[in-house]
């Protein structure tokens, strides 16, 4: 992948929302109206499935010696941080393969949150994922490069570099998750303008939703998960393996029950260096078996969720929201 285009000379860029002073800052993200779950038109999945179930493996690379973002240090202790670097590199030597095997065995495709530099560093992994029919979406250049502090031109350059890298593997870049979820308020609009179709940066819903990025683009949010996510489960919430498994099953069971009335999405976001450890991988396998024991489940990629929603439900939801709020057509 060529290095992204050099940045524009607008460092400081005071018109961007990130630099508005306290008091002048928007108090919400400004791109979606309130939409209660109660009373919504029914979202139907293919085959009348109750739940669209998808797995988001984060296949990332964290740099050995990253440039240190002034707004977020890449490593918790010091840089370089051998423990944290090498633990993440466990993905590429061991963890990735355990994850791939358990998913392939059950015929579940991944939608990959890809540090697009992996296309260069570990192209064999990317080829293997493509061969399995997995979707690649961009999770930025490296997971040690955040959008905090990036000018809009720099953000555009990262989006273009992502399109180029994933394009080399024959896929179109449709989706996006900002590294460490560090978007600015403008990021979603930039994605839509670049031709992307969905974002995973928003955690506000159990269903896809239209996102208002201006009149020229139809752009949707697809539910990702910061709750059903192995790092928060195991490392932020200190869950042992059994509790993780119980939690995942509870999430799925509830959404499956609710999905009888109105379709739901369940995402499980995973990191091979966490879930691919020998003490956790069997819990992942057991959870997948639990899901597979239900018959009204659809197993799409995130791209397929977004496309189905855009084609079948986007207008219905937009109309409903217009009626609900009166002022939106």
């Amino acid at each position, binding site marked *: 992948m060529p290095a992204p285009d050099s940045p524009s000379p607008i460092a400081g860029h005071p018109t961007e929302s990130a630099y508005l002073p306290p008091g002048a800052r928007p108090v919400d993200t400004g791109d979606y109206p309130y939409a209660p779950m109660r009373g919504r038109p029914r979202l139907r999945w293919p085959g009348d499935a109750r739940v669209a179930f998808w797995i988001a493996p984060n296949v990332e690379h964290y740099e*050995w010696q990253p440039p240190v*973002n002034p707004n977020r240090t890449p490593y918790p202790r010091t840089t370089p941080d051998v423990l944290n670097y*090498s633990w993440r590199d466990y993905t590429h*030597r061991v963890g990735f393969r*355990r994850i791939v095997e358990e998913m392939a065995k059950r015929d579940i495709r991944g939608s990959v949150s890809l540090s697009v530099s992996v296309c260069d560093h570990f192209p064999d992994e990317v080829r293997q994922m493509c061969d399995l029919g997995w979707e690649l979406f961009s999770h930025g250049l490296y997971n040690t490069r955040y959008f*905090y502090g990036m000018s809009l031109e720099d953000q555009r350059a990262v989006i273009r570099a992502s399109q180029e890298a994933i394009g080399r593997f024959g896929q179109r870049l449709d989706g996006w998750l900002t590294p460490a979820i560090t978007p600015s308020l403008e990021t979603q609009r930039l994605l839509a303008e670049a031709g992307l179709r969905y974002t995973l940066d928003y955690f506000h819903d159990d269903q896809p939703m239209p996102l208002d990025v201006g009149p020229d683009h139809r752009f949707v949010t697809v539910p990702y998960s910061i709750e059903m996510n192995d790092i928060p489960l195991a490392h932020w919430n*200190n869950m042992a393996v059994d509790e993780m498994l119980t939690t995942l099953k509870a999430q799925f069971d509830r959404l499956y029950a609710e999905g009888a009335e109105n379709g739901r999405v369940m995402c499980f976001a995973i990191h091979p260096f966490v879930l691919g450890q020998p*003490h956790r991988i069997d819990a992942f396998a057991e959870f997948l078996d639990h899901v597979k024991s239900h018959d009204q489940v659809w197993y799409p990629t995130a791209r397929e969720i977004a496309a189905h929603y855009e084609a079948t439900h986007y207008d219905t939801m937009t109309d409903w929201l217009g009626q609900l709020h009166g002022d939106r057509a």
Partner: protein
Amino acid sequence: MSRQITPTGPEHLQMPKLRAGMDHDFYAPRDTWSVPRLDFGPDVHLGIWLQIAVEWFPLDISGQPFLPIGAPARPWPDSETYTQRDYGNRIGIYRMMDALAARGMTASAFLNARVAQRYPILARYIREAGWDVVAAGLDAGAIHHEGLHEDTERAMIAEALSLLRAERLEPAGWHSPSWSQSTRTPRLLREAGITAMADWANDEAPYAFQTGTGTIASLPAAFELSDREILFARQARLADFEANITAAARRLTREAADSGTPRLLCLNLSPWLMGQPFRINGFERILDMLGGIDGARTVQVADILAASLDLRNG
């Protein structure tokens, strides 16, 4: 209120290390999972490497560049924490030693040099137990990091080795306190004659690590399954810790059977945690569970190095 962000410069778009392979020159990527990497002999399917952390946390740890897990952190003098950690060297480790001896199992002492210096009697018991010694730096607070001058770091390594040798302990390898290295550490270790280190947590089998002045064997460094991570940092219950280890052992045993190539389970355990009276039965249950696995055997550094197909083949 959310704090305001600072703009990033052009270096955040530049990717000088973008290429096939790693973003450093220490090792090439490899597939450890599906390619045979180990051979412990015909009857051993699961090697169990018990890394017993034998540590001294000085009362005045500097906290540079970070405070190690388990370090005294209350206002000075934090004698509460200091003495609780020292309990491990006086009481806890002997419980663990007895439990291992009773089962005919071995371990490696990940030994701070200043423990050997301060407690030569403990050094003698470690020697007599047949444990091999992995030199674990000077003490738990002596962190190797980029901010050190190279001469300082070289002297730290030399002093640690010299203190251990003064107690007739010849290290089979090296472990950096808190699994922390500077970019120079592997080279300085190699220059000091060290041939194996257990600091990088990226693998489940040894591999050749290029230091810049020759290779050093990188041994698996279990951190996720350590008691300090699960019991201390994550505050899990003992039963959950045991369940984690059982799950890992079961999984690795099955992978060994499926692949026809053995696996290695590393457990890094601390006497100040696992040697407590209320936990020692848990330690014994873990040993009994592991000992009950057909084809499982405890291994030490020399066994692991000899078992490495990659190191054998140069």
